[in-house]
């Protein structure tokens, strides 16, 4: 927002709610119920369709056509290209800083199940991936997080690679315009139907 000289009020939603989709939907609806503005820009993806059935009030709602926050940051097509190149587990600084990040998960599993069984659990979680993709969004100095990313990749047996994420969708969400190709605009006093959650350009 700073780069676009914007100063919109932000309502943060706890990221841990992604683990409990029904609670995430409820939290989103409750936050929407409390807003007093003309337009809400939803800086999130479809997130397992948790945004389906959200209702607008006296405001319009704009949602980017992104299945999740990875596509929001790097673009859906770019993400698909990256995944086709190598099955990739993506990381950002924010996800590494979170209380429940992949490293705390790993340490927990090793401590709880022991090295061999904990490693097996993680092999199941990451067996289909070959690469840890660290998203370089420009929002943080990428070099600072690479030592930790290398450590995680080493433990999980993945190649570690920096992947450029230009955040064009996120930028456009903030600045507009919102063409139908890339955004879903829900009018006032309407409901975001599941059928509205269509990705384009697949």
């Amino acid at each position: 927002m700073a780069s676009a000289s914007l100063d919109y009020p932000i309502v943060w939603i706890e990221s841990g709610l992604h683990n409990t989709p029904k609670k995430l939907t409820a939290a989103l609806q409750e936050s929407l119920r409390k807003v007093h503005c003309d337009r809400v820009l939803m800086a999130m993806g479809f997130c397992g369709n948790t945004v389906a059935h959200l209702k607008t009030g006296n405001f319009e709602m704009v949602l980017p056509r992104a299945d999740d926050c990875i596509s929001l940051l790097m673009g859906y097509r770019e993400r698909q290209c990256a995944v086709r190149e190598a099955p990739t587990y993506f990381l950002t600084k924010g996800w590494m800083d979170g209380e429940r990040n992949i490293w705390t998960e790993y340490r927990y599993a090793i401590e709880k199940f022991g090295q061999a069984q904990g490693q097996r659990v993680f092999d199941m979680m990451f067996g289909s991936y070959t690469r840890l993709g660290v998203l370089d969004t420009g929002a943080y100095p990428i070099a600072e997080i690479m030592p930790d990313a290398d450590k995680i990749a080493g433990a999980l047996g993945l190649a570690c690679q920096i992947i450029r994420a230009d955040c064009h969708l996120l930028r456009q969400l903030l600045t507009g315009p919102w063409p139908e190709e890339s955004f879903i605009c829900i009018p006032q006093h309407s409901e975001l139907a599941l059928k509205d959650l269509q990705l384009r350009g697949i």
Partner: protein
Amino acid sequence: MKQLLWEENALVQAMGRLEEQSVKEVVSQLTAAGYDNHSIFALLNQGVDQVGKLFESGEYFLADLIAAGALYSNVLSHYDLLCAGKQKKCRGRVLIGVMAHDIHDIGKDVITGLLRVEGFEVIDLGTDVCTERFVTAALQYRPRIIAMCGMLSYSCVEMQRTAVALEKAGVRSFAKVIIGGGCVNESVCESVRADAFFCEPMQTLEFCKIVTAQPGE
């Protein structure tokens, strides 16, 4: 709610605590005592529910969910061994796979194990299965049921695409199409025009039993 016997409760608690050895021991005891597979799976599912609640409360981590899925599959194999030698009726053929670009297979593996224990022949296409592979395999194996699984949002798109292709290929004249996984709900089921959707393994199993109990093509 029905009062659980000590062993029944022990199985639920052991599953909830992810204690593989204890789970297998109690399953062996209950099997020897004449419990049928439906009763044992119902208890295991109560334990899985506990895991889910502990995850939602923040006490359990993602690793625990993965471990629970693996434990469930291991216990199914253990139970299958306990029942080896018993005549198992072949109920019918099920084709199963996770949608293209999606590699979340724990739910699929649990369903596959459950169906096999119950006497279904399961053709498991694995993960990241494209529409063409679903159609080709459906025409080759002519299953009674095709189960499409997905965790990610875009799996719903793949489900729609695959269901249309299955219809065009004439597969739906002999096979029911069902969907399951984290991305499905009633609306998705409607948009995919699937015959049913499931978020619970036992419901999936019951549906497959009902379908295969009816005469096929």
